[in-house]
């Protein structure tokens, strides 16, 4: 349980944002409410507020990302923070410097927050355990473990379209086993009280313990999509084909790709989501991705507001200035 407690400071405020697991419903609702307020900033002429002026945020991306890194950077800049993008491939870690040495160097430059993406599960936790007491760590995706800001921007998008989480049927389709996005979404949906969460995909890429997460498992799209309010498509990682977990792309599309025809099985006002990047013609048909029920590009916009909310909550805690650091 220690793993979860590390996210909160002594006053119960959000210090690190590493995983949805273990956070209370009210905390998630607070993030969504703050994000709602921040969304007004991005539609102004001057898309900037001075909230985090003088704070320094370092983006540490050990794994490639365009959307997530860019929206974290924009979020920080719209809050007036200074942003460092550390390019790991050309940084000293590739010359043999250890991760902790690199962190301590950045700490010496008075960095206030690390935004971390790493291919190893648990990387953000590890960093959070070793940083100086005033520093916050945000997990921007670690291995197969968690991607909490993605899950929260998805919750934000759902809340914009659907009034009440406690009346929804949400279907997540694709490679659940390797998806940190799906794992975080399931925790968030459960915490927010969604009564019916379904995961749909071939047996080989749905983890056996899925049922313990409080979800219903389907291996058939036609059953799984019935009456869904929200359909979340996951990206099919092409490298899984080589691992013999999946048949050909063509066959996968035939069975689990979201087409206009299959979309009709869901409720008429169902929304279609995808964390991106999308593989057109593999997990989703172009006409659905670009269709009237798709909210995929909205998700990107909301990602900025949600990341602004999380960053300002973590860096605006009273325990940072009263000397009582947790």
């Amino acid at each position: 349980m220690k793993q979860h407690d590390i996210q909160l400071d002594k006053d119960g405020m959000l210090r690190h944002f590493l995983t949805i697991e273990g956070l209370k419903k009210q905390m998630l609702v607070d993030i969504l409410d703050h994000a709602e307020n921040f969304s007004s900033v991005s539609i102004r002429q001057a898309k900037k507020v001075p909230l985090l002026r003088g704070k320094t945020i370092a983006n540490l991306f050990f794994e490639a990302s365009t959307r997530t890194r860019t929206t974290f950077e924009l979020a920080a800049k719209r809050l007036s923070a200074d942003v460092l993008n550390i390019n790991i491939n050309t940084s000293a870690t590739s010359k043999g410097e250890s991760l902790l040495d690199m962190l301590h160097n950045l700490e010496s430059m008075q960095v206030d927050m690390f935004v971390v993406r790493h291919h190893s599960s648990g990387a953000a936790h590890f960093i959070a355990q070793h940083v100086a007491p005033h520093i916050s760590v945000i997990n921007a995706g670690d291995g197969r473990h968690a991607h909490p800001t993605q899950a929260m921007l998805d919750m934000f998008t759902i809340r914009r379209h659907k009034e009440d989480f406690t009346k929804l049927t949400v279907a997540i389709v694709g490679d659940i086993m390797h998806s940190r996005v799906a794992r975080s979404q399931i925790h968030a949906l459960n915490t927010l009280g969604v009564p019916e969460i379904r995961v749909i995909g071939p047996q080989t890429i749905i983890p056996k313990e899925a049922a313990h997460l409080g979800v219903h498992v389907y291996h058939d799209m036609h059953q799984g999509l019935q009456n869904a309010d929200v359909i979340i498509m996951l990206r099919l990682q092409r490298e899984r084909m080589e691992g013999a977990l999946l048949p050909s792309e063509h066959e996968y599309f035939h069975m689990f790709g979201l087409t206009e025809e299959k979309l009709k099985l869901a409720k008429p006002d169902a929304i279609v989501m995808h964390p991106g990047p999308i593989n057109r013609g593999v997990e989703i048909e172009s006409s659905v991705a670009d269709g009237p029920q798709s909210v995929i590009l909205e998700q990107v916009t909301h990602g900025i507001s949600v990341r602004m909310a999380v960053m300002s909550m973590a860096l605006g805690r009273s325990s940072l200035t009263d000397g009582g650091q947790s």
Partner: protein
Amino acid sequence: MTERQQSKDLDTPALLDTLSSELRNLLKSRNIENPVMIGIHTGGVWVAKELHKSLNIEQPLGTLNITFYRDDFTRIGMHPQVQPSNLPFNIDDQHIILVDDVLHTGRTIRAALNEIFDFGRPASVILAVLVERGCRELPISADVAAAEITLDENQHIKLSCDEENGSTLKLSIEEAQ
């Protein structure tokens, strides 16, 4: 409760009338014909709604939530939610009437001015408040105020809105004993 609270109500409708007529005179003396009005959440918006009506201002009322501009953010963190700012008009070259309920330290007004200037460059800003009380910490003063009140340390002034009763406003001085 170990602390008793004494409360004294002020004649709020009369104060609103005074504010409205003083504001009208000021606009006349400055030859301002089509001002826009912005209220500061939450009490300032209540007062602004009344003034907006009594002055027959054409443009819709703007509202400001200065949370993102507070100077004590790193000390007190994110505030409980109020409505986000909404300025449904172009700020540039407008004569603005900025409205708040009570002018105290001046810090809220500083934050509000900063926020307004992030939306554009107004021609002028007039500050109208229902009540001016002492203890200014910044060089800011009201252009119009319906009353000036000096309070003891254990007293504070509070505007409330009875939304079930036609949004009647009530200004009262509360005293902790």
